[in-house]
């Protein structure tokens, strides 16, 4: 199998990749050897971007320890710098694209003052004063006309050359962007055009231009509070989307498949044009957008022989509060079991495991010592419980947003009631899923996995197997 390069452009690209990281942590499968996310956003202070980067970095460290057979964290998510097979020079060891700190305004970037008066007049016709004065360090503030100029820098960058050097026949590319903002709306067609150009001058340009490329373009799904001080007005989102779609209709050449997703905006977000204050709660649309990546990899090459395939996502039932019951069977099949298993694991790890001192599996794995000294457990706790970007924070954000995605009861301490509307049947004689039952099964798995010498892998495998058994035996069908 091959690599999958995922370009996440702008704030939406970053947020979708955060959801994707959570799905991968839960053990959702994606049909490739390795996923290489590349986040493209000049706004390096953007909180959404940085939260995703932290989640991906943490995932990577956990995967390195867990290996590919531990159930959770099993898919290799690599940084571009990690995949070196060939190529010259070095790139920054990070998931983000390095814009080299564009510490200037758009006016300075295009050398406005050095232009002749006629060109300056033309530029003033195409760009508002605000566009021209705007510092590029916080992105393009919803202005794709600015982004389309700045992002042209992409092709000359060491990252793109490095990507091209290491691209192999059979690898696939997926691009995530929003259509109603600045960075994503501008970056997507630009990136596609360059990737599809066999004469781009990049290494392996032939293989890249003939590669299977999929994309998701996220249409408006949230609104912003009105703010006269802000350059972004969410009332223009639909107009911008319509214009961009008209452009895409005639100018997206060579795309093999395109996914669309949108939602009716409800409660508006705070209007933060960029920077560290742009921290939007995770949204169901981002989670469903992440599914497009997985869906894209399910199609065999032959299916892309014809014209561009188009996909849209629909819920089974329109509701403001979404649980597993509101998702179609295909979605539940793809992520339901894994999310439930991972939630059980996270719940147990957070609330119960420290009560197990003295239990067989706990002593056999030396967990007292491991919790104090092993970086794997420190990292795992971060991934699950970090208040900014962790798994629990992600679930809480999803459950607070509108529409709310709340497949789990996040407040219960009863393991039988963890999955919303899917209570595990229990009675006086039949206990369902209990702390004691967990311990018994963990003890059993610890003994049956005696061949696994690596304690960290064994730890994850044990929990994966126990939660897998519980899901199959006790949790009602989703």
């Amino acid at each position, binding site marked *: 199998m091959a690599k999958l390069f995922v370009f996440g452009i702008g704030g939406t690209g970053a947020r979708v990749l955060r959801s994707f990281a959570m799905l991968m942590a839960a053990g959702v499968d994606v049909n490739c050897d390795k996923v290489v996310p590349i986040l493209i956003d000049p706004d390096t202070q953007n909180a959404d971007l940085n939260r995703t980067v932290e989640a991906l970095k943490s995932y990577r460290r956990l995967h390195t320890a867990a290996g590919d057979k531990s159930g959770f964290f099993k898919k290799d998510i690599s940084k571009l710098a990690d995949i070196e097979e060939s190529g010259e020079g070095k790139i920054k060891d990070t998931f983000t694209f390095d814009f080299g700190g564009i510490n200037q305004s758009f006016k300075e970037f295009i050398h406005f003052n050095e232009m002749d008066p006629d060109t300056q007049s033309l530029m003033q016709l195409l760009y508002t004063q605000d566009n021209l004065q705007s510092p590029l360090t916080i992105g393009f503030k919803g202005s794709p006309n600015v982004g389309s100029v700045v992002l042209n820098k992409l092709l000359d960058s060491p990252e793109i050359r490095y990507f091209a050097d290491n691209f192999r026949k059979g690898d696939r590319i997926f691009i995530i962007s929003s259509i109603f903002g600045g960075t994503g709306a501008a970056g997507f067609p630009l990136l596609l055009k360059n990737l599809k150009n066999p004469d781009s001058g990049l290494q392996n340009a032939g293989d890249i231009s003939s590669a299977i490329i999929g994309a998701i373009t996220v249409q408006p799904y949230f609104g912003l509070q009105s703010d006269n001080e802000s350059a972004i007005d969410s009332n223009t989102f639909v107009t911008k989307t319509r214009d961009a779609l008209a452009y895409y209709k005639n100018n997206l050449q060579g795309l093999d498949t395109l996914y669309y997703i949108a939602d009716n905006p409800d409660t508006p977000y705070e209007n933060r044009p960029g920077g560290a204050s742009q921290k939007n709660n995770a949204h169901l649309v981002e989670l469903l957008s992440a599914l497009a990546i997985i869906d894209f990899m399910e199609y065999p090459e032959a299916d892309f022989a014809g014209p561009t395939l188009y996909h849209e996502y629909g819920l089974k039932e329109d509701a403001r509060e979404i649980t597993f019951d509101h998702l179609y069977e295909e979605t539940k099949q793809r992520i339901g079991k894994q999310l439930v298993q991972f939630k059980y694991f996270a719940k147990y790890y957070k609330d119960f495991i420290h009560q197990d001192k003295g239990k067989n599996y706990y002593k056999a794995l030396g967990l007292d010592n491991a919790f104090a000294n092993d970086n794997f457990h420190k990292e795992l706790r971060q991934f699950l419980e970090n208040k900014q970007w962790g798994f629990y924070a992600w679930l809480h954000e999803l459950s607070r947003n509108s529409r709310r995605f709340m497949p789990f009861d996040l407040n219960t301490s009863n393991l039988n009631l963890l999955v919303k509307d899917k209570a595990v049947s229990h009675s006086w004689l039949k206990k369902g899923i209990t702390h004691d039952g967990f311990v018994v099964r963990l003890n059993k798995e610890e*003994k049956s996995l005696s061949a696994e010498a690596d304690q960290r892998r064994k730890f994850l495998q044990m929990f994966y197997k126990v939660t897998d058994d519980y899901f199959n035996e006790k949790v009602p069908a989703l």
Partner: protein
Amino acid sequence: MKDIFRFLYELIIGRPQPPMETPLYRNDIFPDVGGITLLLITMGMVILYYYLLNHFMRTAVFSHWYHWLAILLINAAIAFGYAVYYCRINEATPDSYIYWFAAANALYSAIFFLLFSMAVKWKSNNAAHTPF
């Protein structure tokens, strides 16, 4: 076997008292009490702990060291009581030797409990690492 039990008990409490009951202790009481309490009952209690409470019952609530210690103490109490009881039904002279013998039997039952635990704990699902 008789010689082993005689050696073990007399190592701690000396020769039977009064001297005229030495044959009774050496030929009947030591081997019977030792065989039943140190071997049979102790092994039974170890199996009860490791395989009934901590394997077949499918609960892990009894797997702590203090549960193990509680069973060890119960076993020691049984060993003590049975030694006294057995001396009485064999009409041994009721002096302090009986109680020294019972105490030695309780001590050995604890040691045997520990040794049997080490031997059989590995296959127990929930207490393979109890007491350590």
